[in-house]
């Protein structure tokens, strides 16, 4: 398909702006751009058709099943979009006087109140724009806390080998040393390893629970106690909160700080990669370190408090991805007390149901009940028949199903990580199970054939090595 630049016709344009109604002023020569501005020149009809064609070459939750592990690709309710398109929200300047933005401040205050209740935290910031940004903010809180205690030597963050890649990358951005610990045989934190890893340099532990194998860390109270006893803090990576929202709270497990991926658990859309929102909640003893300003509800009005002497400062301009937070709040208002927990329970039910169906054919890593996701391994098939997790993923593309997350968690060879979410019905799960199984059976029969998949998509398997070796990162005529 042609690029916008290839469709461009010199002199073609849309008429957007009226003529200038004041005397024209241009920058003086020393400031003037010399290089010609080569943007596409197209009519509105051209633009409309171009993006409609691109849309047809994209796969969204609206197109079908999306069991992408750890990404929680649940249905994104459209009322949330309606809320985020109200002019009373979209047309508000971030630096308007406080009394003219009471509605926006109420949104942030309510979202904080509800999400603190769901996570068992005492305060929350919405400045972080994404999960990784939230992690960084959270680890900055830890750093500031230890500094404030005169304990700046605490510069190690413990990360299990099953963790998301953002965890170790985050710790380094916060000037921390990463201490990796191996998981036990059951895929959970090995308590002895943890005990051996903590010490006087421990700033904290980063953990997701349920973990990336979809297993609830049953020793969680002991885990958080070990870290606390050593003087460290415990960080909850909220990527997997969907399994437990409204049922179990990170705060009750002993976590000191959490980030939420509002674009996962709270149903805001992923937008092809973003924008998300990485809200960060913490216990009261860390609240003074949160980014400023903090929104406070006073008797007559909501206030933005900038006088936060212990704050880590700002991590982003203005108030974070406000319209994303608004979508998440709309979702929570819709579901309410029962709906939130029911969502989690059905996410777990769907995962177990699909896992059971697939276990007749695939090697399942999980033993017993899983949480919101489970992991399959193609280790044996890859070794014996050269049919890999990637082959299964690519064959699914021909069958209208988005593949699970592949090759993650890293502790499972040839992993396929499946997260169906609660918004899929039984029929879809039955159908998906049939597809997964038939692909497996056909693939094992015709091992050469499965390496050629997909065959029905607009392109076949791309040459990724070429892309990285000779990077072509922009159009050149």
């Amino acid at each position, binding site marked *: 398909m042609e690029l916008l630049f290839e469709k461009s016709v010199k002199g073609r344009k849309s008429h957007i702006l009226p003529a200038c109604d004041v005397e024209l002023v241009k920058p003086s020569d020393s400031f003037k751009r010399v290089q010609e501005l080569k943007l596409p020149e197209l009519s509105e009809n051209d633009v409309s058709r171009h993006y409609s064609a691109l849309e047809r070459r*994209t796969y969204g939750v609206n197109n079908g099943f999306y069991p992408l592990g750890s990404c929680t690709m649940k249905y994104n309710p459209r009322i949330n979009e309606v809320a985020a398109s109200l002019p009373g929200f979209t047309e508000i300047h971030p630096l308007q006087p406080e009394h003219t933005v009471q509605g926006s401040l109420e949104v942030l205050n309510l979202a904080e109140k509800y999400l603190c209740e769901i996570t068992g935290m005492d305060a929350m910031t919405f400045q972080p724009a994404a999960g*990784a940004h939230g992690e960084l903010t959270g680890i900055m809180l830890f750093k500031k806390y230890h500094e404030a205690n005169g304990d700046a030597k605490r510069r190690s963050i413990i990360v299990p080998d099953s963790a998301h890649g953002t965890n170790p990358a985050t710790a380094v951005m916060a000037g921390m040393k990463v201490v990796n610990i191996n998981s036990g045989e059951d895929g959970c934190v090995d308590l002895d390893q943890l005990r051996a890893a903590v010490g006087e340099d421990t700033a904290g532990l980063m953990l997701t629970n349920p973990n990336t194998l979809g297993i609830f860390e049953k020793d969680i109270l002991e885990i958080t106690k070990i870290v606390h006893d050593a003087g460290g803090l415990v960080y909850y990576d909220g990527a997997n909160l969907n399994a437990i929202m409204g049922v179990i*709270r990170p705060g009750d497990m002993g976590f000191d700080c959490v980030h939420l991926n509002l674009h996962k658990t709270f149903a805001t859309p992923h937008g*092809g990669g973003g924008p998300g929102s990485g809200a960060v909640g913490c216990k009261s003893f860390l609240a003074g370190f949160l980014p400023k300003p903090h929104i406070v509800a006073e008797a007559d009005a909501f206030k933005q408090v900038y006088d936060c002497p212990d704050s880590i400062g700002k991590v982003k301009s203005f108030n974070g991805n406000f319209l994303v937070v608004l979508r998440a709040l709309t979702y929570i208002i819709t*579901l309410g007390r029962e709906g939130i927990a029911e969502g989690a329970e059905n996410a777990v039910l769907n995962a177990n149901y699909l896992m059971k169906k697939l276990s007749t054919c695939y090697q399942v890593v999980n033993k017993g009940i899983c949480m919101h996701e489970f992991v399959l391994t193609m280790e044996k098939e890859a070794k014996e028949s050269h049919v890999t997790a990637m082959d299964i993923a690519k064959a699914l593309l021909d069958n209208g199903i988005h593949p699970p997350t592949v090759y993650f968690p890293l502790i499972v060879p040839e992993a396929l990580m499946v997260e169906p979410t609660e918004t899929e019905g039984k029929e879809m799960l039955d159908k998906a199970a049939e597809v997964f199984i038939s692909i497996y059976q056909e693939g094992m029969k015709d091992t050469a054939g499965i390496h050629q998949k997909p065959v029905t998509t607009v392109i076949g398997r791309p040459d990724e090595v070429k892309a990285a070796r000779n990077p072509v990162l922009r159009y050149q005529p």
Partner: protein
Amino acid sequence: MGDYLSSTASQRQEMLKEIGLSSMEELYAQVPGPLILQNGPDLPEGKAELEVHETVRQMADKNHVFPVIFRGAGAYRHYIPAIVDTVVTKETFLTAYTPYQAEISQGILQSIFEYQTMICELTGMSASNASVYDGATAAAEAVAMCRERKRTKALISAAAHPDVIETVRTYCWSAGSEMELIPVKDGRTDLSALENMLDETTACVYIAQPNYYGILEETEKAGEIAHAKGAKYIMGVNPIAASILKTPGECGADVAVGEGQPLGLHLGFGGPYLGFMAAASAMIRKLPGRIVGETVDAKGNRAYVLTLQAREQHIRREKASSNICSNQALCAMAASVYMTSMGPGGMQEAAYQCMSKAHYLARELEKIGFSPAYEGEFFHEFVTKSPVDVQMLMEHLEENGILGGLPTSSGILWCTTEMNHKEDMDRLIRLIREVVK
């Protein structure tokens, strides 16, 4: 109560039975009992969609939408062509994930490739990433890109946006590296002070064009000064202004960053916005975040993929160049649609109108005693002193539906865009006269 579940109660029973359980509670059997919330979270009852709509509507109504805005300071009300929101609200773009599966994601991947190309054209740089969170975090990430083993200090213009300064300060503290502010003289970065501050520990210099006060900086000279002492040069640019001003590429920048909100994104009380980042060719592999590259598939068809992933957290973990994972992809798409529908002529027309109107307003304000705080050439923002109480003035404007300039410690920071008609500006002047007399 609203929910978005599909299986009926009886289907759920069937499913439970299939997995050998008899109740939903048993799904959490492995969780220590005391951790289970007995009565659920303390939240209000759920609502039906109609009630939800009313509830959020009521909150929106508690905000005040100003029909006329003369305030910018990092967030700008520009005209957004109708096609922009039409495209970015398409369900598939809205709900797709990061395009890991290239075969079914060519639409998103191509749109990012096109976005990267437009950012390169706008900034005159060699390569762009697929976006970061906003202008402030883009600046902070750019500073991190420039840090070397022995060169760790960042020099940031004190005339940069306060949120940029604050965010870079936070990130530098976090990473354990130094940051210093380059002083401002007459509303401009003091380049002779910069010369004295540079030393062999300086990693980079950041200058905003135009700066927070709207003044145009001597960006070429700043780059020469930075490079003469071996430091990298980061330019933060307003993307509308960039269409008519000397590009970061022309000024010798190593990294160009900026807040992309003016490119078709709503004010939205501060977000989501768009951080754009582009680098000179030598710095490409230090760019953080997603980057899309062109390649071919097995049959030789042109194809797009996420590339250079060896920089990224999911591959490199603690050795990654940044932890960024989710970005602002849909906002980047809005920016592409904006730039395409405006076209090169439309972008530049918008820039000239912004600048022309600001100069008209500055002249009219000066006539009634609001003298400019600084002398330098400016783009679409400028600072004036006020002969009257600023608070009183702003309240009077607000009563008349106008959001006036931003009160700052150096004066009132005014902004105009193509949205501010001459008659609005004349009315603004009339209203101010009522306070001045």
